[in-house]
């Protein structure tokens, strides 16, 4: 079972690869642009990689796509439309669109099957930190009450933006007020997206141990 996964990394460098393989990170989601470059390198280090297809237009989300989609809406209406789609994918919340995550958005998402993917990267920005944290705290708590899945990702582009597994758990505890409410969400999401993939991953892990 995936206890923690730092899925969705935007860019990778040598320091990040070193950090990922030395820490208890098992699954890494890579943006489609960098997937081919780093996939083999990460697999050699016993890491499981997932290709994340980055989409900014809700009309492009289709059942034909077999990769796990990251939908990054740039306006309110697009975010609402994305929330209503019945397909397993994630709606990315970052420094550009965190203000659109409101009560109405959560209400719209109740009918769909998308999960909210909150990026931890903007929390490192001194100016953005208080406002972003206040918004996502409200948004996450509202989503959990309404049964919408929420997951946390680093969205890192350099070493300094990576969050260790422990840091992610502390962040989760601060945002939700309880422990373990988001930690297993990644597992649920992956299982919903591709059950066979998760089963294979568990078998692979058992064989190694």
């Amino acid at each position, binding site marked *: 079972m995936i206890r923690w996964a730092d899925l969705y990394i935007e860019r990778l460098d040598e320091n990040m690869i070193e*950090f990922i393989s030395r820490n208890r990170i098992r699954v890494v989601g890579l943006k489609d642009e960098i997937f081919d470059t780093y996939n083999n390198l990460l697999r050699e280090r016993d890491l499981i990689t997932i290709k994340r297809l980055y989409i900014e237009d809700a009309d492009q989300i289709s059942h034909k796509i077999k990769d796990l989609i990251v939908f990054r809406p740039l306006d309110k209406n697009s975010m609402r439309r994305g929330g209503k789609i019945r397909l397993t994918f994630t709606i990315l919340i970052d420094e550009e669109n965190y203000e659109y995550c409101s009560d109405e958005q959560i209400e719209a998402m109740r009918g769909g099957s998308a999960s909210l993917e909150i990026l931890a990267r903007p929390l*490192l920005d001194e100016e953005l*930190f208080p406002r972003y944290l206040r918004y996502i705290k409200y948004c996450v708590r509202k989503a959990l009450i309404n049964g919408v899945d929420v997951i946390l990702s680093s969205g890192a582009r350099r070493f300094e*933006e*990576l969050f260790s597994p*422990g*840091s992610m758990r502390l962040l989760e505890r*601060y945002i939700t007020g309880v422990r373990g409410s988001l930690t297993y969400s990644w597992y649920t999401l992956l299982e919903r997206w591709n059950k066979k993939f998760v089963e294979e991953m568990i078998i692979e892990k058992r064989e190694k141990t």
Partner: protein
Amino acid sequence: MKKERKPRKRYLVFKLYTIGGSPDFETFRSFLDDYMRRFLGLSGLIDSRVKLIRYDQETRYGIIRIISTDIDTVLLAFTRIRDIKDTPASFIPLRLTGNLSRALKYIKRYEKRIQ
């Protein structure tokens, strides 16, 4: 009326992951004081009573004492540590214990793994 919880000491076992050299105990302690003052403010610093108990420059494992009532805010502050005196660093929280002896026990276990 809500009953106020009694503040209790908690010990956080952590590992510091740095690129380049590792800071010594004094450097890390002074950095932590400055950083916590900046994050919590002066009044916040009085209540939190954060103290670096142990830090090994070689293994990079350490223990920080915190108070249970301010645990969430203080831990949030730790997650944002990204550089120590211009050296890129990542703070990795490992265990939170109720007494120092248990924290030391965990550190010994982690250090054994390196050897």
